[in-house]
């Protein structure tokens, strides 16, 4: 399968990359590891004028542990994230999430953490070859005016499928975004718009430069759970992460995020206050199950390789497993 024609820029500084971005905007996407972008180009889901490679920009690679946070530069290869001592020590759930992405040979060396967060949302009717798509008509993202999966939907409902997304949201990570005009930061949770056709709160002139995860302020107890048909290669059918602070037998804070449901990760906010201050108790799991189902029922539509009904059930399973593990409870049958 051949790629469409485009120009190739490999600037050696962020400033130069931002200058090109300021000029070309959406017609020059960032090429990080390319393991998502190149598939899109081959399927003619994009035909950009140019791509901007991060290959030569040293300042966009590497990991630093500061006094209060761990910084992952956007262009850091996934393998380095999972092998970094500071990540392993502080955030075992992130290591697990990175290991569960695709397969070693697909993207663990070439793929980047920034590319995983900016992964284009996926849909059964979108991530297909041009030939396949010509049989179905156009959707919001391919030049049409409707959603092929949910007739009448005003926006694209494609699925945010990155393995690290719920983890970074549960850990209250912040993104740093740069443009020729300057830098800004935003919580990962607000980075997602909920619209598949423009999934990120990032303009075409901007580049994601880093992800900053605050170091836990108490003993972190966490979990990452994902369910997929095959344990390797396949994208998650659903994934969930819990980050809790457990001190002296009490839950000091609790955040559960479910993703791979709709275009944005879903944070189960109401559980946070309900569980905070309590002792971990198996009785907490029924409310977790109910909250998970309620939260994803409005987000999941018929646009994946499993039915909506099945994915809603999986969301409850993943949420309960994640909560059980993080709260140190016996896994309850779900």
């Amino acid at each position, binding site marked *: 399968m051949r790629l469409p*024609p485009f120009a190739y820029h490999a600037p050696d500084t962020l400033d130069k990359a931002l200058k090109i971005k300021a000029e070309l905007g959406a017609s020059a996407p960032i090429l990080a590891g390319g393991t998502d972008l190149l598939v899109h180009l081959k399927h003619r889901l994009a035909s950009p004028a140019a791509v901007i490679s991060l290959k030569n920009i040293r300042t966009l690679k590497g990991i630093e542990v500061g006094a209060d946070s761990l910084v992952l530069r956007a262009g850091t290869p996934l393998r380095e994230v999972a092998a970094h001592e500071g990540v392993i020590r502080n955030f075992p759930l992130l290591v697990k999430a990175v290991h569960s992405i695709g397969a070693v040979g697909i993207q663990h*060396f070439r793929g980047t953490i920034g590319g995983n967060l900016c992964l284009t949302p996926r849909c059964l009717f979108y991530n297909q070859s041009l030939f396949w798509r010509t049989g179905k008509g156009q959707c919001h993202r391919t030049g049409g005016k409707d959603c092929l999966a949910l007739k009448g939907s005003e926006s694209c409902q494609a699925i945010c499928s990155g393995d690290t997304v719920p983890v970074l949201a549960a850990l209250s990570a912040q993104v740093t975004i740069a443009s020729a005009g300057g830098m800004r930061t935003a919580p990962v949770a607000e980075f997602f718009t909920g619209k598949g056709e423009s999934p990120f709160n990032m303009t075409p002139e901007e580049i994601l430069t880093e992800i900053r995860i605050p170091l836990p302020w108490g003993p972190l107890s966490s979990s990452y759970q994902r369910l997929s048909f095959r344990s390797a290669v396949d994208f998650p059918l659903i994934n969930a992460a819990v980050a809790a602070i457990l001190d002296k037998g009490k839950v000091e804070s609790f955040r559960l995020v479910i993703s791979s449901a709709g275009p944005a990760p879903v944070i189960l906010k109401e559980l946070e206050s309900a569980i905070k201050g309590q002792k971990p108790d198996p009785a907490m799991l029924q409310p977790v199950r109910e909250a998970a189902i309620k939260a994803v029922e409005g987000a999941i539509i018929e646009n994946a390789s499993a039915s909506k009904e099945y994915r809603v059930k999986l969301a409850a399973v993943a949420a309960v497993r994640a909560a059980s593990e993080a709260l140190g409870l016996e896994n309850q049958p779900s």
Partner: protein
Amino acid sequence: MKKQLLSMTVNGEEVNLAVTPNTTLLEVLREDLGLTGVKEGCAEGVCGACTVLMDGNPVRSCLTLALEAGGADIVTVEGMATGGNLHPIQQAFIEHGAVQCGFCTPGMILASKALLDRNSDPSEDEIKTALAGNFCRCTGYRKILEAVSAASTGHTEPRRKE
């Protein structure tokens, strides 16, 4: 589309050529350099048949722009044998019947080399993880696992049967 210069090392030899930016590493290796041991199965990152080593790491050559390999050290299956002798992993694949149609074999061998170069005595689970992104539609994988295990340092004859 303007061509750009690309310099890289392929199987120990420096190569310099001009490529259009939309050329994949797979296309350069197969079409410009004649290294047809690099196979194109799915062309979209799923199957692993196109696996090559880039600075020692297994990567999908179908999802890597040739220009991204500038300055890199690339190894394809053609670069495994030395002095007319097959690499021990290649030998093990033959001895264990780990090859049927052979289409997945170059990718399997390179993914195995990447693993064994890092971890000379992997457990079966570690081998499975390292090869999880390489599909074989013929062998049923058992023989491949046996071959990789036989090529590892911890292997002692005769091999344990399950």
